[in-house]
């Protein structure tokens, strides 16, 4: 286990105490409701190897495991398929990895366009089930292999969010296990509902720091009958910015307006139109009309559509900027990289102003820090602008890069953390300083 500091209140299980905790975990859920095994190096979370890994079979078993963890003051990191387990900050400590992959189950209320899915359901399985009824969860596959819980906990949204919003907008209800193992539900099973606080919003993108998501209820949309993807390479960022603005201002109602800027070469604009087949020609023509050259057309999405740029393991920067500033911020970021010999790939939604940039995993940490700093400086005056580092390659992480930067409302977030998890035992340190 790496160097760890403990949050106030939690007492580390050592020696006899650790064994006692292990025994208690194994007995937490009756009838083998929760398989418990010792952690291996492969279970490491951001370089921190857990003492135990528990895989509860159902929410009740998961609750029992968490209750035992609370009793023994264990630090806990929830994990789905582990596709993003090394995202965020490294946990200050991790006694137990709680695996959600057995928390499955899909309840699809077809006529209500609503589905409830267990946290461990792979998003791809969910989409397949929904697709058979002509419906979909309007998110793209940003990280293949993600589970529902992982997707929600990291708040990852893809290109199509301009029409139906990011993931958080599709969540209408959620059941979460608190740090003390108590199950708490918020929201509901109907799309329209304003009863009580919408705590699901807090858990979306919280990296498991406030609780363990066990199931999520989503609103769904019908799968549109047809789609068309138009792509055009722009001679430079400024032209691309103008094109995107023109497309967004047109009444063509695109489902996605994406930037795809490979490490070398010109940025490309991709516009996704979805809807009645009969209307696609006219809409496509309207999009083409605002572009200087005829775009490339396709009637299907290319493989890898919506996925993050770069290769697995790359350091990933997330740039959130008012849409008109997004391309400029991307350009600044790339220029800052190039000046230091780093070629960054950028992809993301120009409609919403959320982009990801991939910096090769082997880039020198100081150079990465300089790139991040340049991007942050570029967005300093932009209302809501932020540059975070959802994933830092190990050397970058080790160099102590500030992954989050200045986060507005951080004091309120800490206050929430303190109430929900007074012992700071849930994924401590994965999200910002003090959380």
């Amino acid at each position, binding site marked *: 286990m790496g160097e760890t500091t403990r949050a106030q209140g939690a007492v580390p299980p050592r020696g006899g105490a650790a064994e006692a905790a292990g025994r208690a975990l194994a007995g937490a859920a009756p009838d083998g409701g929760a398989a418990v095994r010792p952690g291996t190096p492969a279970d490491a979370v951001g370089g921190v190897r857990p003492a135990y890994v528990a895989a509860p079979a159902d929410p009740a078993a998961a609750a029992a495991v968490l209750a035992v963890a609370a009793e023994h003051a264990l630090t806990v990191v929830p994990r789905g398929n582990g596709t993003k387990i090394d995202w965020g900050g490294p946990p200050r400590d991790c006694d137990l990895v709680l695996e959600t992959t057995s928390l499955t189950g899909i309840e699809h*209320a077809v*006529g*209500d*366009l*609503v589905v409830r899915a267990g946290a461990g359901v792979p998003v791809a399985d969910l989409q397949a089930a929904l697709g058979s009824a*002509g419906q979909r969860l309007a998110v793209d596959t940003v990280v293949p292999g993600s589970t529902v819980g992982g997707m929600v906990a990291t*708040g990852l*949204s893809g290109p199509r969010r301009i029409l*139906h*919003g*990011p993931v958080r*907008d599709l969540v209408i209800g959620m059941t979460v296990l608190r740090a003390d193992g*108590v199950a*708490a539900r*918020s929201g*509901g*099973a*109907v*799309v*329209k*509902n*304003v*009863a*009580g*606080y*919408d*705590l699901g*919003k*807090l858990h979306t*993108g919280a990296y498991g720091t*406030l609780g363990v998501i066990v199931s999520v209820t989503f609103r769904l949309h*019908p799968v549109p009958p047809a789609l068309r993807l138009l792509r055009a390479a722009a001679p430079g960022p400024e032209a691309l910015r103008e094109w995107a603005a023109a497309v*967004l*201002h047109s*009444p*063509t*109602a695109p489902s996605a307006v994406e930037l795809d800027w490979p490490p070398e070469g010109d940025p490309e604009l991709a516009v996704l139109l979805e809807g*009645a087949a009969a*209307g696609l020609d006219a*809409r496509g023509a309207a999009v083409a009309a605002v572009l200087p050259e005829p775009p490339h057309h396709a009637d299907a999405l290319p493989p890898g559509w919506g996925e993050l740029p770069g290769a697995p393991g790359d350091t990933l920067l997330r740039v*959130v900027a008012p*849409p008109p500033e997004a391309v400029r911020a991307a350009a600044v970021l790339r220029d800052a990289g190039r000046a230091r010999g780093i070629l960054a790939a950028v992809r993301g939604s120009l409609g*919403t*102003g*959320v982009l990801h940039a991939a910096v090769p995993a082997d880039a020198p940490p100081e150079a990465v820090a300089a790139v991040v700093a340049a991007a942050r400086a570029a967005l300093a005056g*932009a*209302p*809501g*602008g*932020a540059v975070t580092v959802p994933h830092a390659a190990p050397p970058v992480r080790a160099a102590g890069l500030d992954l*989050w*930067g200045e986060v*507005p*409302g951080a*004091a*309120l*977030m800490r206050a929430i953390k*303190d*109430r*929900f998890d007074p012992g700071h035992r849930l994924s401590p340190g994965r999200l910002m300083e003090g959380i």
Partner: protein
Amino acid sequence: MPVPVGPEALVPRLRAICGDAGVLTDPAQRRTYESDGLTYHAELPGVVVLPTSTAQVAAVVRLCAEEGVPFVPRGAGTGLSAGALPRSDGVLVVTSRMRRILEVDVEARCAVVQPGVANLDVTRAAAPHGYYYAPDPSSQQVCSVGGNIAENSGGAHCLKYGFTVNHVLGLEIVTPAGDVVRLGGKVAEAPGYDLIGAFIGSEGTLGIATEITVRLLRAPERVRTLLAAFPTMDAGGRAVSAVIAAGVLPAAIEMMDALAIEAAEAAVACHYPKGAGAVLIVELDGPAADVDAQFAAVTALCREAGATELRTATDAAERARIWKGRKSAFAAVGRISPSYIVQDGVVPRTALPEVLRRIADLSAESGIRVANVFHAGDGNLHPLVLFDDAEPGAAERAAEVSGAILDLCVEHGGSITGEHGVGVDKACHMPDMFSPADLATMDLFRRAIDPAGIANPEKLLPTPRLCGEPPGVRTDVHPLVASGEAELF
């Protein structure tokens, strides 16, 4: 903890903050603020302040925090859950003088407004640029954006476009401690917990929104509105299901029953088809070709479901006329009944026919008329329970029917409120929908932001004083209710 003082003790300092004209102490003036749109909850506010800036709001709230005096935010006072019910021991902070539209940023497709700006004024400001603000509560010409934030208000067009929470990019809030915090900006998805999302719908219990950045949408290329008359509610309901099953996502599907039609007719002479048992308003918007294709499908589905008359709006004026009846329906019920209760509950769309039948039964059994106006697309019912308070016992029976309708909603897996919020009115119904643990967890959140409990206390979550018992432990009828000494609404 400071020893709480009476709000009157704050008056000189409040005057120093808001100026003499910004502090109301005259009882007659204060009394005009005694309730919001739900008048059967009323209380005389201790003091009323009318700040004009964020700095004033922050200073007022800080003063309240220092002195342990509760405060209640209020926008236009159109709320229907007594969320803005004042407190005699507190300060009512009214945003009606903070109504400037600070910026319309066409390129970033957003507008920055003060909280007192009326919802519709945002669209009015954006319209010349070809944009609009999507959430459109029926009260849109008057309700404030701040109030919309607090209630997470929705409207007819939320079926396709979502609620207030889906259209807010940035917030400036004054926390219950009096601190000014800016969240988000001209782009959503700020890092960390989604505080904006959690603040929206918090009914003024987490602080006061003092500046709001809302997303603007491009006006659709085509909008087509259809008015379909059906002989019965059942037939109308069948049409709704058929439309949804066909994979069409209209911008809005609204339904009104015969009684609601009668009221709207009396109020605004909307000339809906005579003798209809139900009318459906279906609006489609988007790219022209899509809308036309879907429109043909919807028209055919309505015919199949038994529509007796179909009318299509061909221009903005006709469209407005069709909507006028729907949008005025609530307030118009005053024309056909001396008093009424507007209920707001949600059921899964598929449960609509069943629940509507049960409501009709309830009405028949109790002799209390119920008019139905609702967002059929998302199962959001707005039964209007009509009664004459001059008739002895009628109010009580109406309240019973209204409560029974909520029970029906919960029983069918729905919600006790789809858009009007919990406020004081439904706080005691929260345990019907949420477990004690759910409620306790919500309270954790509230106390994280407002440890002193001074922000709109006793709203949203049940309290012993309000509901006669600790939150959530109600398993059957409360003894006081059983003995007839108290009533639950």
